[in-house]
């Protein structure tokens, strides 16, 4: 009797949609090669945009996955939550005035800068592993010289921090 090692279960919560099966297979190869956990699945009818093959991915890794697919020129339609009814990505931000400093909050991420110099003095919030790394990379740098979380990060927390940085840049630009 042959013994097969049972594959570990995978629950990603996100879907990458493709126009055709060829793109889906190519996308799977690109992501697997880079070490992402993926699973070929049939998308629910209400989410289907192109072909009837999609990749289940860890939704939290959406920014890193999209960046890689673009870099490798692997065609895909979109990445979205598997759960129908989920809201779209948050676009709104909140701004808090701390006198010499301004804090911008995008979803669970906050970025604070000194108004006069534009120096990033803190980032807070989040929970993904790239966030402490970005915290270390960004603090003490001027807003327009700091690395972009969307370039260095891999997760939705990083994407939200990037949104906060965008708003900070706009506010600081307006104040100068």
């Amino acid at each position, binding site marked *: 009797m042959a013994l097969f090692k049972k594959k*570990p279960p995978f629950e990603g919560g996100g879907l990458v949609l493709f126009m055709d099966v060829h793109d889906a297979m190519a996308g799977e190869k690109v992501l697997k090669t880079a070490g992402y956990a993926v699973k070929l699945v049939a998308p629910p009818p209400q989410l289907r945009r192109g072909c009837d093959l999609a990749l289940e991915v860890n*939704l939290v890794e959406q920014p890193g996955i999209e960046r890689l697919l673009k870099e490798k020129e692997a065609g895909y339609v979109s990445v979205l939550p598997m759960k129908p009814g989920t809201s779209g990505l948050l676009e*709104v931000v909140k701004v808090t005035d701390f006198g010499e*400093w301004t804090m911008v909050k995008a*979803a669970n991420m906050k970025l604070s800068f000194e108004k006069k110099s534009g120096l990033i003095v803190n980032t807070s919030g989040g*929970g*993904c*592993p790239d966030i*402490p790394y970005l915290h270390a990379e960004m603090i003490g740098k001027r807003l327009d010289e700091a690395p972009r979380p969307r370039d260095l990060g891999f*997760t939705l927390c990083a994407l939200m921090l990037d949104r906060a940085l965008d708003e900070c840049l706009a506010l600081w630009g307006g104040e100068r």
Partner: protein
Amino acid sequence: MMLIAGTVPLKDLPLTVGRAAAEGDSLVVDGRRIPCTQGTAAMATAAVVATDYLKLDAPQVLVVGDTGQGKGSREMYEYLIQNVARLSPQVLALHYCLPDMALTRRLCEAVKGCARRPVMIADAASMYAAKAAGLAPSFDVFTPDATEMAFLADPDATHPAYIAKHLFDTDVTQTPKLVEAAYERKNAARLLLVKGATDYIVENGKILATVSEPDVPALEPIGGTGDTITGLLCAFVHAGLELHEAAIVAAKANRMAGRMAGATPATRVSQIISQFPAAFQQYLCQWSEVCYSQGGQR
């Protein structure tokens, strides 16, 4: 034994487990120095400082390098799944990592093999994974901030970036409604410590206490000040306080340390942590009836 597990932003740090110590601005685990900044390092350092003050064993800490690609996070989960029953910690606190629903599910199964069920505490992305996988009731404590509370209240979101806009728009006065929604949908742990301008301590849906003094708004922008509350809470639970007592004392101590540090948005979390011993010395007896004389006698 208290076990704290999470990733740290050191790319090449292998999975490291050991009794932790705080030295200067670093957390030291098995001889490896980890800068005490936002994340697991701040949380664990706060727990170390509190256990040191209370003359308790320092926490066992599991750290692994991960800057976002998830390899270290998966190693962390796998180590815990394989070893948690053998280790049987009294307190198990999960922190920064790439949230993984299937691995969290396996970990919750593995915890059932412990001689005695640990107090299960989750913050940061470990909390996201627990909620997204429908495992929140398997945990004893979550420590969300305001947006994360909205995430727990949102029945569909698997990450706070996908919460409904109307939930993100709510202010602190709406926290009780969010709490109610989260418990109704079984998306909350037994106890919630909701961190914000007013901290809410909630057990099984009932708001037991709020903490709003001292009011130090500058704590919110400082990366790691939410992590330190969770670390303090772990230490006080380990010391034998009831969950809600530990949460109240942790919230008060964090605020007081912020005030003592003269916190501004530019303050570093290590400056807050350095004030904990003074805050404990001055207030811990009053807040918790955990009292020490100068010589360390309880």
